[in-house]
């Protein structure tokens, strides 16, 4: 690395819907790059030293909480773990994730969307006995491999990148999308969830569900956690076709 620090050019989408008369626009900020700089560090630098009104969301800043999904040079991704050194031109364009309600600038309301998704797919173990479990006794046994497989599908951090990368979602506003399918696949795999295939069909057996997917697989391409969306959507489809 040369000792001469680069000047990075950030082009950032700015719009505060709560500020009267504010108009959406792109604003350019210059930041002196530091070694190991991430977009998280750069955005805080801009907020503290150039424009304290700049809105964005970070929580863990370690790539595990899913707060900071945004469109980075055209790709939905987690901003906190994106190093600025990845961009040889030193130009970084940031836009809020499409498909979600805009709060302001780079901040979108993924929380509201994800809660609604969880309610829609009933994202919990369906077993009347779960509430009456005698927790003094040995727990129900589970095949170790099944436990590992469930964890593989539960690694989703609800960042929303799959929604933003989904063309079907753009055409069908109520499309359940990859995040919802992954959640359903996770519960369908879980022996503790007593839902039948017919019950799962009620949730996803239509064009806003798994049959609406156009298989463009932006979800698979852009998932920051590399979850197996393609395999799981195909699996759910086969499973649902067999129901009726």
């Amino acid at each position, binding site marked *: 690395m040369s000792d001469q620090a680069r000047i990075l050019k950030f082009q950032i989408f700015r719009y505060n819907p709560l500020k009267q008369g504010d108009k959406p626009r792109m604003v350019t900020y210059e930041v002196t790059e530091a070694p190991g700089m991430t977009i998280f560090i750069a955005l805080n630098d801009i907020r503290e030293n150039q424009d*304290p009104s700049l809105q964005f969301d970070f929580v863990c800043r370690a790539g595990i909480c899913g707060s900071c999904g945004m469109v980075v040079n055209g790709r939905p991704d987690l901003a906190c773990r994106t190093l600025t050194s990845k961009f040889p031109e030193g130009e970084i364009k940031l836009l809020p994730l499409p498909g979600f309600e805009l709060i302001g600038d780079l901040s979108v309301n*993924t929380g509201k969307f994800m809660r609604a998704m969880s309610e829609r797919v009933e994202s*919990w173990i369906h077993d009347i006995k779960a509430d009456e479990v005698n927790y003094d006794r040995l727990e129900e046994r589970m095949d*170790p491999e099944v*436990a*590992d497989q469930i964890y593989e599908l539960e*690694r989703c951090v*609800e960042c929303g990148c799959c929604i933003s990368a989904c063309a079907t979602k753009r055409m069908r506003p109520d499309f359940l999308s990859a995040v919802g399918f992954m959640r359903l696949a996770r519960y369908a795999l879980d022996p503790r969830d007593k839902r039948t295939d017919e019950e799962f069909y009620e949730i996803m057996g239509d064009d806003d569900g798994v049959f609406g997917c156009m298989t463009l697989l932006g979800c698979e391409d852009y998932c920051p956690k590399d979850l197996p969306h393609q395999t799981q959507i195909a699996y759910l489809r086969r499973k649902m076709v067999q129901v009726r």
Partner: protein
Amino acid sequence: MKVIYTDSLIIGGGLAGLRVAIAAKQRGYESIILSLIPAKRSHSAAAQGGMQASLGACVKGDGDDEDVHFGDTVKGSDWGCDQDVARMFVNTAPKAIRQFAAWGVPWSRVQGGDREVIINGQKVTITEKHEAQGLITARDFGGTKKWRTCFTSDGTGHTMLYAMDNKAIQMEIPVHERKEAIALIHEDGVCHGAVVRDLITGKLIAYVAKATTIATGGYGRLYAVSTNAVISEGIGTAIALETGIATLGNMEAVQFHPTAIVPVGILTTEGCRGDGGLLLDKDGYRFMPDYEPDKKELASRDVVSRRMTEHMRKGKGVSSRYGDHLWLDITLLGRKHIEKNLREVKEICEYFLGIDPVKEYIPVRPTQHYSMGGVRTKATGESPTLKGLFSAGEAACWDMHGFNRLGGNSVAETVVAGMIVGEYVADHCAANGLNVSTHTIQYFLKKEEKKITDLLVRDYGENPFELKAAMQKIMMDKVGIFRNGEDLAQAVEELKVLNQRARNIALRNRISSSNPELVEAIRVPKMIKLAQCVAYGAMLRTESRGAHAREDYPERNDRDWLKRTLTTWKDDAADLPEVSYENLDVMRMELAPGSRGYGVDNTVHHPDTEKREAQIDQIKKDNPGADRHEMQELLNPLTIPEKFKGKNERIGRGYK
């Protein structure tokens, strides 16, 4: 005036807050959770390594039970904890984890038969019992006698938080997101809820409740470098302090985790060392066995962090542009293990360091990680001085951790405290009505409104970001791993000046709705007050205990300091908090003060220690037929909600 009424108000949507809400709702009380962010993004998700519960299913956990967990926890705390609470905790942890298994956490399970593990740098084959097949397994962690830390890969906190939030969604518990509690509403020693700012619209709302629970996590962000999420700023703790009535406990007890990556301070789990990873110096030499021949890399965190710092001070650190660091070597664990059980660590190394930990060493150094201190509560979770105010999880000083928390005991605390405190919250809701005058509500709303208006109209003043950075630097430089009187006195003085300056903040972005600078301006004066509590408490405590290490007072001094620090801030115009102490009663301890079995043993003993030891021996002699449960009742009789009193079953052992 917008007012929202509920039975139980919970501030904070992490594991502890969610569990309290669930407990209250199960008992029929309406609960509302306030959260800065969507609940599933809470810092609980960052707990990678696991949750301690003495299930004893894996072969290396054989012989484990509540008593062993209790001993480890008390020793870990350097005898600073409340032993009644530690007892409640260890007895309930197996229940919490089993309930959680039914609620959907995909805990990693025992696979019967041979498997290869790394112990003390060597490949060893261990044989898991076939009769334990499919039960919840555990890994090794620091400061524990048994492998007790239950896990899902290294995403334990994530899976726990998702299961808990999903349970709350199933129970239709509302989470009001992007809401920040900025003051508590209270009158005549009773808490009635909170004044809350909507972070999007900027509107102030009064949430009025019979019981208010603070579950906002720790205050790690008082330090410039911390493993904590950026929201772990201690604001819930601070609004309790600002009542002038609620007390904070042991604020100087701040934990530094041995292995955060350099320079950004992101955590790599203790599971790295638990699974066999080693600490190496600049010569590639494994130095921990020289300092801690018994526990080596797996002594408690306070001890390992100090030993690492000592070793770097001897010139054995690896120098870098960000200062010295050491190496964490997990290459010996092999690709398969790392990609399965340490995959978040691998991702973090790849993204933030550009290295592959399967082949390369990870640069690490001790970094602020956990707040043992917090809102002082009774064993019920209620503030002893402000009725109706509860606290649970890292935000609380329930005090099962004393001066050092063991790895794996924090997520365990969140869910166990959530269960227990949640019952007491429900009891409180059952016994109390909502008796608060609208005048009181209005008084607190107006007061906060005025503070915000003052900020928005002030033309010249201090920059909140600069004040925060100055505070964080003081804490890093002067209130760190090793402390001394001179630095601490300076820190106290410098923070006083910041406290004064923070009364005169002015904004560049003067709008009342969604405004990150205004958020900062509201928080920074609160954070400075907390920093003062930490620094002042550390200056006054002239001994070393757990994570509080004084170079000028290196001995643990049970004779003079077996007590908990209590801090209040009665007069808002004052520039220092008031500090008092409550004694820990040796004569009521189940485990009398002694040696931890790691670290330096230089204790100045308490005069009661020998007496209590003799008394315990006598009780044991007088009751030769007592089993361990009866003995515990004799030594440390517990008050705990009836539903948690059952004995815990273990494989091969039944309920013994």
